[in-house]
């Protein structure tokens, strides 16, 4: 990640339009993409749980969504900072990505509420899995909805320029993305191992007492 940081801040040429705030792009977008990926992974594990019935998938799905939600929150925060840098406001409804992430963030926070209010067991695992699947279905549908809503919600004053990147910029982006993905993966494995250990120890304790 250190390499990515150096590249992003020093090596990449300054973007002509936005100046230094362009550099936020290198960390904001990878985090957003990683969040999507985590939600997708959570849904895949959820599908596997429902299909194969192996209970291990429940924890994996949960941890993936947990990471996704954290990265989603980070997306919102970095996105807000970028909005402030680009347009001078901390929040705007016309940034489709920000709004989409807000909706998803709410959706997945409700996921945790669901899990915490159900008793542990196959019922909870299955309900969580179904909800996770609804989540990924919601992503494109919400995106469409937000696009459609532009019509009558607010006039689109702000536009975000797409990634027309020069070679060095693109390379920097790729490195950043790889770094963030690696980070997410490491955190995922660590979190999963921690939770499994917790469960195993609890089982051990019960067996010994």
């Amino acid at each position, binding site marked *: 990640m250190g390499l990515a940081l150096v590249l992003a801040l020093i090596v990449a040429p300054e973007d002509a339009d936005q100046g230094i705030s362009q550099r936020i792009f290198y*960390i904001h977008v990878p985090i957003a993409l990683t969040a999507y990926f985590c939600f997708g992974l959570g849904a895949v594990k959820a599908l596997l749980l429902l299909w194969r019935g192996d209970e291990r998938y429940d924890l994996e799905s949960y941890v993936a969504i947990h990471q996704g939600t*954290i990265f989603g929150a*980070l997306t919102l925060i*970095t996105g807000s*900072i970028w909005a402030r840098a680009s347009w001078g406001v901390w929040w705007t409804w016309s940034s489709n990505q920000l709004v989409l992430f807000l909706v998803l963030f709410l959706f997945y926070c409700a996921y945790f509420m669901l899990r915490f209010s159900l008793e542990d067991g196959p019922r909870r695992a299955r309900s969580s899995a179904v909800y996770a699947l609804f989540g990924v279905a919601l992503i494109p549908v919400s995106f469409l909805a937000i696009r459609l809503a532009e019509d009558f919600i607010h006039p689109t004053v702000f536009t975000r320029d797409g990634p027309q990147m020069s070679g060095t910029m693109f390379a920097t982006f790729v490195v950043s993305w790889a770094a963030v993905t690696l980070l997410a993966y490491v955190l995922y494995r660590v979190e999963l191992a*921690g939770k499994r250990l917790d469960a195993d*120890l609890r089982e051990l*304790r019960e067996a010994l007492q």
Partner: protein
Amino acid sequence: MSWSQEELVAAAYAVVFVFVLVYVAIIAAKLVRLQRETAELVELARRKSSADA
């Protein structure tokens, strides 16, 4: 409360960095707790096996 562009860029990266730090701290605390629990259970197991023997 107007921020310069450089400050904001630094803030964005700082947020992520702080998050990673906090996460590591949480994991470290969890590890300590798990170690303690494992030690307790090892003690329990030893006592049990010496009681059975």
